[in-house]
């Protein structure tokens, strides 16, 4: 018994010796998710796919990390900055204060932050014109509704999500002006992104009140809306990633926010030495937002609807239609 104990202790001591865990390659990109988590089928998963695309194309591996809470944002950023990561990509508006603090402290590390604008010489800020993509799915909702009632369920009630709502309503009214809108937000704190049950209850209540299409701009909570659409035999519109496959036949389309594009571009640029700090906006012309078409919704979006959507897209790009925005959509500090 005693010898066994000694052996266990010896093993423990031995096991604790391997110490240096260096990165293998020269270029070291890091991806930090927000608290929605890596496989949320939405925002964070899009970021993950973008990093994977970069990894397969360049053969350079990336590190990623899922914080448990907002308080870990700063710790995670500092940890990778101190280990001299070359590029740290942080996705989510929640990172704005944390990135500002850490970027000031580590001026030699490059930061790319998505959805927030931070004006520092070593930070690249990438934001999206979510209102333009939402305009198009709003049109699709207006063309698909039979009851004349369309719904919107936002995640956390912040200006960034209001921007989805504004574009969506404007797009729907662009098609017909006799629509009723019902709008709900899951909550006012970051936990609103991770509450599919509450989102599902809100969706069921909206469907019960006659709504037959709901656009959910709510990250992982939106999965609750999509499942409620199936239960109620109605339609939902996905967000960020292509969510058409989640419940085929019940997802009209998805408002694509090409976080994957932004992440893989930032990593490629940093690797090639063309990375620049400053603010970039990705809208319809840049392919940063779009609506999703695939085999799952081919029967839901008719050729005629498609034609009108493409027409509106061209007009937005040409500047003939201006999509409204909200103030402070990407501010955070």
């Amino acid at each position, binding site marked *: *018994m005693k010898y066994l104990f000694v052996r*266990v202790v010896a*093993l*423990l001591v*031995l*096991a*604790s*010796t*391997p*110490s240096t*865990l260096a990165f293998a390659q020269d270029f070291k990109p890091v991806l930090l998710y927000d608290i929605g988590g890596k496989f949320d089928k939405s925002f964070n998963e899009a970021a993950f796919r973008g990093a994977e695309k970069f990894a397969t194309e360049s053969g350079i591996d990336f*590190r*990623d*990390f*899922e914080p*448990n*809470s*907002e*308080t*870990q944002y*700063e*710790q995670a950023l500092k*940890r990778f900055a*101190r280990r001299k990561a070359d590029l740290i990509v942080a996705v989510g*508006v*929640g990172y*704005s*204060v944390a990135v500002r603090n850490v970027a000031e402290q580590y001026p030699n590390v490059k930061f790319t932050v998505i959805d927030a604008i931070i004006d520092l010489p070593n930070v690249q800020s990438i934001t999206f014109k979510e209102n333009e993509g939402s305009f198009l799915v709003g049109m699709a909702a207006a063309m698909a509704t039979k009851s004349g009632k369309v719904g919107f369920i936002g995640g*956390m*009630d*912040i*200006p*960034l999500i209001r921007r989805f709502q504004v574009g969506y309503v404007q797009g729907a009214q662009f098609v017909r002006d006799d629509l009723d809108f019902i709008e709900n937000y899951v909550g*006012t*704190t*970051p*936990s609103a992104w991770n509450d599919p049950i509450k989102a599902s209850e809100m969706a069921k209540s909206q469907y019960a009140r006659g709504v037959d299409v709901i656009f959910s701009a709510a990250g992982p909570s939106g999965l609750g809306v999509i499942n409620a659409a199936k239960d109620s035999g109605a339609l939902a519109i996905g967000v960020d990633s292509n969510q058409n496959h989640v419940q085929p036949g019940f997802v009209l389309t998805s408002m694509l926010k090409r976080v994957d594009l932004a992440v893989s571009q930032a990593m490629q640029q940093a690797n090639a030495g063309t990375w620049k700090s400053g603010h970039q906006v990705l809208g319809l012309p840049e392919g940063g937002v779009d609506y999703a078409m695939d085999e799952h919704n081919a029967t839901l979006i008719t050729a005629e609807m498609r034609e009108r959507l493409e027409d509106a897209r061209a007009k937005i790009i040409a500047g003939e239609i201006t999509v409204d925005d909200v103030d*402070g959509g990407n*501010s*955070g*500090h």
Partner: protein
Amino acid sequence: MSAVPAKLPTVLESLLMPFLNILVALFVSGLVVWGLGEDPFFALGLLIEGAFGYEEAIGYTFYYATNFIFTGLAVSVAFHAGHFNIGGEGQAMLGGLGLTLAVFWLGDTAPLLSVFVAVAGAALFGAGWAFVPAWLQARRGSHIVITTIMFNFIASALLAYLLVGPLQRPGGQMPESSDFPDGAGLMQFHEVLAYFGVSFEQSPLNLSFLIALLAALAVWFLLSRTRFGYEMRVAGKNASAAAFAGVSVPRVTIIALMMSGALAGMMGLNELLGEQLRLIGNFTLGYGFVGIAVAFMGRNHPLGIVLAAILFGVLYQGGAELAFEMPTVTRDLIVVIQGLVILFAGAMPHLLRRPVAALYGRFAGRGAA
């Protein structure tokens, strides 16, 4: 000879038993890691390296431990008076609110003074939040477990309301306050050490660690050296006997729970005044609940609580490092490992008691013969 002694020597009871329990917990965690196809010894090495391998890691370990010392002491003070304070989470939130208000009130004009007021504010608000459940328990017989849990929800809702309303950072989207004014914060250890010419890597470990140790000392003194501490313990062991001996049990209950709340409230000093320098919506992160496990693992003795808190600091910091370094070890698995440690060392402390006692009995018997 073969009789199992009812009582083990203190050294075995308070040092060997927790150690063995932790070993069992680590063994089971190792099995889980092994099942995931990773080398458990390498994982353990990463965990220890992540917690103690370099100065910054040590700083983080003790930084987390500070939170657990406060919440562990909070649970233990209430427990000595015979009550289960599950409301550490809510009391910590209110403590954070109290210190934030103090800092915004005085921070611009007198940063140094504001820090002292903030310490008092954290304790006062925490104690105040514990007062209502304490009064309801003492005077109306409402069960403290229920009321303190409910007060956690109220605190969380109150904080969320304030942080998306009046206290929100102007132009901000997240539930967090503006930055604290310059100079209104507790010094971090690397700054203190730099003052004495010692260089230490930057880490969030700050002066609240010392405050926590002082609090532990004060709790020890209160419990074992003062009349009130004695009254508390008597009331905790047997309220009727205490009342018969002339102790005002309701008064002891209220004061003990308010002290408990004050200790929990001071957790915010470490997180907010030491590191984040702004009030964040859910900065408590369940530390209040972990305090229950810390108190039990530390056998409700201040020294034991400090040691148990450091163990949890190791698990938090080393666990985070493990999640960084091993992609297959996700954040959820870290929670599993922490849960196993709580299960074996906190909830089932007597699992290995019989075999150890039997073994000890044999050795002791042989010594006597």
